[in-house]
């Protein structure tokens, strides 16, 4: 078949708008943010003329910011871990449970994603506040004397983040388990493996890619979460993302804010790569 030259160009026109959009409004801005982090801080303007390493120097010399990155990473780890522990059984049930439950369960897992993150975080402030439902109920039952500190601390942030990102853990694990041939588990059972052994030796290792995807997704999302930490943490506990946005919006420190954002992203990326390596190794072993 002779292909006219027009036809060879045609398909490229299909991808052109997306390619241009991504190059101009994603790649260039990301390069720009790297450049921005080396700019001089400005007086009255977002940034001044010339370049400097001072923004990174300020980050490393002030223990406050290093500490905040560590705190943010720690919150990210705990959120990811809790999402995994809480989400895995649900993912398993959605993949292997009775079909009557499955459709409803799937809808229940998906539905929080349809509700905006501001609203969901707001819901947690109603639940966790000092005058919130949980504290009032416990006080009403006489179980506690004063309100438990559930909000304006790391605990509240983690509870809300686990809720917000749990579907992102459940869905990849669910599809990984759905991809496992049930006859493998049946074979293990028929060879005398207990339920626990069959799970530990067959289901769990084969669902590792889903676990990996879910963990990376939740970890990255919780590091960069802004709404939930700022509504639940208030002014008392700030994660790095909140500090970065404040530095940019409130005080217009664009170069320093960029340096902070990049330091958080780089540390986050290092942990994701380490985690990826570890799980791949385990996957092979």
């Amino acid at each position: 078949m002779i292909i006219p030259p027009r036809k060879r160009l045609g398909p490229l026109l299909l991808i052109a708008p997306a390619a241009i959009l991504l190059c101009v409004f994603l790649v260039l801005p990301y390069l720009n943010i790297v450049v921005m982090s080396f700019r001089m801080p400005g007086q009255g303007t977002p940034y001044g003329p010339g370049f400097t390493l001072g923004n990174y120097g300020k980050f490393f010399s002030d223990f406050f910011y290093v500490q905040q990155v560590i705190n943010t990473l720690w919150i990210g780890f705990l959120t990811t871990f809790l999402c995994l522990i809480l989400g895995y059984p649900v993912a398993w049930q959605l993949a292997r449970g009775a079909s009557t439950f499955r459709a409803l369960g799937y809808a229940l897992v998906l539905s929080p994603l349809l509700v905006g993150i501001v609203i969901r975080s707001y819901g947690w402030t109603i639940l966790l506040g000092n005058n919130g439902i949980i504290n009032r109920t416990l006080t009403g039952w006489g179980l506690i004397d004063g309100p438990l500190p559930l909000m304006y601390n790391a605990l509240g942030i983690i509870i809300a983040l686990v809720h917000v990102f749990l579907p992102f853990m459940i869905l990849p694990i669910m599809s990984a388990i759905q991809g496992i041939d049930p006859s493998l588990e049946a074979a293990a059972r028929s060879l005398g493996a207990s339920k626990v052994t069959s799970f530990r030796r067959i289901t769990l290792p084969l669902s590792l890619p889903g676990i990996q995807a879910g963990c990376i997704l939740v970890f990255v999302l919780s590091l960069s979460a802004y709404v939930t930490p700022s509504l639940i943490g208030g002014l008392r506990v700030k994660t790095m993302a909140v500090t970065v946005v404040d530095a940019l919006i409130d005080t217009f420190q664009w170069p320093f804010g960029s340096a902070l954002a990049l330091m958080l992203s780089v540390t986050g990326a290092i942990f994701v790569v380490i985690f990826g390596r570890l799980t791949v190794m385990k996957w092979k072993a």
Partner: protein
Amino acid sequence: MSKPFFTVYCLIIYAFLLAPIAVVVIASFNAGAFLTFPPQGLSFRWYLVFFNNEVFMRAIRTSLWIAALTTVISGIIGTMAAMFYVTHAGKLKETVRVAMLAPLLLPEVLTAISLLFFVYSVGLGTQNLVGMIVGHVLITLPFVFINVSASMESYDPAWSLAAQSLGAGRFTRFRRIMLPLIKPGVIGGCLFAFIISFDVFTISFMLKGVGMSTLPIQLFDYLRTNFTPEAAAVSTCSIVLTMAVVVISEKVLGLRIHRF
């Protein structure tokens, strides 16, 4: 784990997932001036306050406009990219996929910040909607792409060739062969795009101009200083609106699939 224990465990997780949303909805019918539980009687008082609050009403209109524009742009660009990805990408397939999913994999905060700097350095600024729309299109593009390309998995290029051999032009082939087949994917993708755009916060927060707050931004600002149930009424309306979009698209547009 025994079976009943396992079921109970899952039910608790489902309850955990729904609790904060249910609480917001219940709180919106509170008759009292503060968020107390149990509510001090039921009333629509806060809905009336909300409907008469021009700030929130304007925010809803802004949100709907932006979401609609975003959906159209993202739907077209994303569908085209998905068509390229499935039928023409060849060796570049994995590259195209990763590039199209990039906005989803990159932290939203970082994307928002970088876009903010960018619109300023090219002189666009935030006084028009361009930056905001671009940000929303970027964030929603992966969802259109995923849905459309998934619906094209079963697409056989031979069908298009058959139509071509029968004399159908390029546009006719697209309209009569491909579009009806990928329509569920396009609708699903656009649905996601609309909802995500309606709910997205960080991108809008960084790229908003003066007086262009979307509903999530307005709500966030309100929540920083106010604790009345009006915020709950606003939230409930937002939830209902989103659910309505889902149901309407499924019922109305779902029926039209057969009419093609």
